[in-house]
């Protein structure tokens, strides 16, 4: 019986209206972002076309500028993959070693620390 005393209509009105308003507001934002998204994509395309034309007219110097412009729109995931590959390349790679063993006779340079050795190597000849 207590359930009948509850203001179900008021609750339904608040819940229903608020949920509907959340959807309507966000649908409005979705439409606006979709339109502005197309505008920005079109803007990037026209920038690229302009740079393409300049590249064709001028040559290699402008090509570099074009790749710079392209670099502005490289996504984070691509950059992460490139940096990881470069790091792996320099970290894992090491010098190729030759299999030739060379024995080089080294100079015996005198020093006070090795003076005893010189004394031992003196052969007395009769």
């Amino acid at each position, binding site marked *: 019986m207590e359930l009948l005393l509850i203001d179900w209509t008021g609750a339904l009105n608040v819940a229903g*209206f608020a949920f509907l308003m*959340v959807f309507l507001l966000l649908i409005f934002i979705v439409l606006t972002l979709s339109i*502005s998204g197309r505008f920005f994509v079109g803007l*990037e395309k026209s920038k690229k076309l302009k740079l393409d034309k300049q590249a064709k007219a001028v040559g290699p110097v402008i090509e570099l500028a074009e790749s710079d412009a392209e670099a502005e729109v490289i996504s984070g995931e691509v950059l992460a993959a490139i940096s990881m590959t470069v790091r792996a390349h320099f970290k894992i790679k090491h010098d190729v070693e030759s299999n030739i063993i060379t024995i080089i006779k080294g100079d015996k340079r005198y020093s006070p620390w090795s003076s005893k050795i010189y004394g031992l190597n003196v052969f007395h000849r009769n």
Partner: protein
Amino acid sequence: MLSWGDLLMMGVACILLYLAIKKKFEPLLLLPIAFGMFLSNIPGGELFHPSFFAGGTVHWDMFSHGAGLFDYLYLGVKLQIYPCLIFIGVGAMTDFGPMLASPKSLLLGAAAQLGVFVAFFLSVGLEFTLPQAASIGIIGGADGPTAIFLTSKLAPELLGPIAVAAYSYMALVPVIQPPIMRLLTTKKERAIRMKQMRVVSKREKILFPIFATGLICFLLPAATPLLGSLLLGNLMRESGVVERLSKTVQNELMNIVTIFLGLTVGATATAASFLNLQTLEILALGVLAFGCGTAGGVLLAKFMNLFSKEKINPLIGSAGVSAVPMAARVSQNVGQEEDPFNFLLMHAMGPNVAGVIGSAVAAGLMLTMLK
């Protein structure tokens, strides 16, 4: 005098400390909440006086009669300062790129607010008042600062249990969501691979917070404190010219405010406000809100697939519950159970950050209608 209620609350605080430290349940907030609860239930501590804030207003004249540390710090909650400052930090840590690349994800963020309104409706059935039901329902938005913002305005007497429920369940997202996601989707749907998203330019990312603030706050002024703060933080991040400020709001400011917010919210959980049947009902309704929010996002994604040429993986719909980035990671993990080479994370981030906007809009609407 130490009462059984005080002892029991200290025991509850110890359980929450265990969950925060050992099980790592949202420790950044649960630890200060638990310790604030522990401190305020020590008799004679005089750190917090609920009577200073009785009736939903601040009794400024009582502050001259022995206000404690937490009374002063609680003013940041009561005057809605802390949630807004935290949202500035959240905005500075959020990348709206995936959402801008796929604006449809905003709809999934909206659908995930279903949990808010289902919990609201059921709360009314459990004889909570409409403002209390709205505060309980917003737990389903999975957004701590929004829950605290709305509850401190509409139902400050329920702030303790609602804050504990909100942050505990946010930590349980990886446990609550996957069974619901598997129940509502087929293997074939879970294995859907989505098209690569377009690249979003820097200009778009800078213009979005300015435009969104003007549009949403103009249409829904009550959401201005939260959404304005969120988008201010985002603008600081995306503009790239205030790196120092962006780093400060993401780190030092958020950490300081988190400490004050956690301690004072925990301090409101006294025996009288926490140890009653209402708290159990709030905890049960919180789980239901989360579950319904997850289901809402998944079901709308399935519905959109009926009309859309480019299929959406329904698992990303569950990420509309705005526990960023945990809910997006859950979508990625469940998707990879079917196809290990299916990377849904960035696709799920769209609805995930859209859910933050959706829950703030839902809170603003309920504040407008029920204040």
